[in-house]
């Protein structure tokens, strides 16, 4: 196995260990103890939180910002696809040409979306106030990873560069803002638990 595969493999192991640490910490700390009497069903609240509670029709962050929201969705789908392709490559599995082109298209669309969001972050004053180097770097490294994934899938070249960028991304994931990959699910869980307990979620039918 070439040296850059080894680097990527080690980075993947470090990344998984980092995420395992975050996950186990969340599990160990557990959920809050609530002494109030529940008015609703916490389990139903959690289900709602992960389903209809994320429906873009109900969220101003989605329907008032459709271009950004759409770019975000594409960006995230492309991230998962690119990671999948990367892991397959790492273990010597390469997709068939037709599938490869589809995956390349998705990854490329993600890279374009990522670039667009990066430009927005630089251009929008209120986002500049909010942003740290972590935000710019995270956006850029994921977009570059997606772009290289597409390039590798189409040309079959640039694998060393792709593996090194992937390694950098994987090493950074558990320590920068990209760790929201795990905290996102915890946030939805806690929100569902909280609102489910109080009978806020699921909302009453009109």
């Amino acid at each position, binding site marked *: 196995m070439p040296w850059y595969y080894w680097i990527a493999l080690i980075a993947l192991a470090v990344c998984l260990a980092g995420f395992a640490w*975050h996950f186990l*910490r*969340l*599990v160990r*700390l*557990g*959920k*809050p*103890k*609530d*002494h*109030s*009497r529940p*008015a*609703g069903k916490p389990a139903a609240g959690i289900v709602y*939180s992960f389903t209809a*509670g*994320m429906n873009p029709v109900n*969220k*101003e*962050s*989605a329907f*008032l*910002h459709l271009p*950004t*929201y759409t770019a*975000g969705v594409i960006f995230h789908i492309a991230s998962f696809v690119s990671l999948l392709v990367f892991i397959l490559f790492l273990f010597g599995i390469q997709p068939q040409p037709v599938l490869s082109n589809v995956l390349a298209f998705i990854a490329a669309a993600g890279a374009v979306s990522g670039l667009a969001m990066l430009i927005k972050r630089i251009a*929008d*004053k*209120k*986002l500049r*106030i*909010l*942003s*740290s*180097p*972590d*935000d710019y*770097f995270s956006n850029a490294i994921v977009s570059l990873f997606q772009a290289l994934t597409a390039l590798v899938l189409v040309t079959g070249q640039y694998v060393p560069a792709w593996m090194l960028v992937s390694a950098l991304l994987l090493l950074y994931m558990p*320590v*920068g*803002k990209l*760790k*929201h990959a795990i*905290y*996102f699910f*915890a*946030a*939805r*869980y*806690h*929100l569902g638990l*909280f*609102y489910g307990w*109080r*009978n*806020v979620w699921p*909302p*009453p039918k009109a």
Partner: protein
Amino acid sequence: MEKPTREQIQAGLEVLRNLQDSKLITHLNSCVHCGLCAESCLYYLTTRDGSLIPANKVEMVSSIYRRYCTLTGKVMPKLVNARKLDEVTITEMVDKLYGACTMCARCVRHCSIGVDIEYVVRTGREMLARMGYVPESLQATVDAALETGNNMAIPDEDFLDTIEWMEEEMQDELEDPEAKIPINKEKSDVLYTLNPREPKFFPLSISAMAKIFHVAGENWTLSTRMYDVTNYAYFTGNPEHGKVIAGRMLEEVKRVGANKLVLAECGHGARASRWEGPNYAGEAYPDTVTSVEQIAAYLRDGRIKTDPSLTPERVTLHDPCNLVRGGGIMKEQRYIMQHVASDFAEMTPHGMDNFCCGGGGGQLAMSEYNERRIQIAEIKAEQIRKTGAGIVVTPCHNCVDQLSQINHTYRLNVQIKTIAEVVADALVTE
């Protein structure tokens, strides 16, 4: 601002270090700085000040967390904007977390991730409270409650005079000398609480609720020992003070022996007692409901009857944030409206998406932020104006206060009433 001492800094950081569960670190690690919460916040919508968007309030707290509690923040603070907790940060925290957030949680509902922004703001307030940086005006409200038993420091004698006066008013109105406002009555089924604004400024709401209880044939009482439904320690962020106030309420319910605690029309009071109170006190309260739920139950059970034609004017409803988004009570007030208003118009948006009146989060108690509070109320004023209503009903005395000021400033020319008042107006007594 004076430079904080080492002890103050440590006291503030202890809030972030002393984790009770996974909720705090979850929400401090989740915000992705997308900024899409901006348009859900009335502070940003009315000022267009990018520093006031909800994500920036989360960032105030999470940046300190990163600086002191994460490896990246300790090693490379500039990379992840990990901030030191110093006088500059504290000054900004006070302004943003106390002075520029009503804790309405509208942003939480619309957050693309699901960050409980209000919870993070409250955590930031707790840090400031432990360091001794609560705005004086807000702390004075808590101090009054701790020292006198009610947040307006109303002496017992004045309170009893007001109750006696309202009892006479009710007796005259009902032409029934047996109609009473019971005080400290033992073996009552219901212990009813008040917002101290009622005896102080809006006593007619007491007689309105008393009239409803009387017509419903309820076995109820008020207590002179503890009638204050509010707990402003929820807004200052001081859990010790919250515990004292919540503990008093629990103790009084037990002493009276009531099997139900009915909470006055007060959004934050309902939240502080129904949901936060048991957690402050460390044990469950007995059956606790809001007066909105109680009145709706009376109507449903046929214990009171109303005539909507007695209220011919168009009526609209303002949903208090803590009652709706923070407490899940949305249908009951609308059920009541069906029974008391012949011409009812909803605001747009309403219910879970309703905008805060601008007086929440302790804003009404903090005179230093008055100008900002009135400015952000522009959204609510426009919502009301568009309904064409002559009466605005809200089950919250805090909202009544803020809406009254909006009414004056934005020349809305409407009447502001509580639910009990409109129900009492429409009550059929024979």
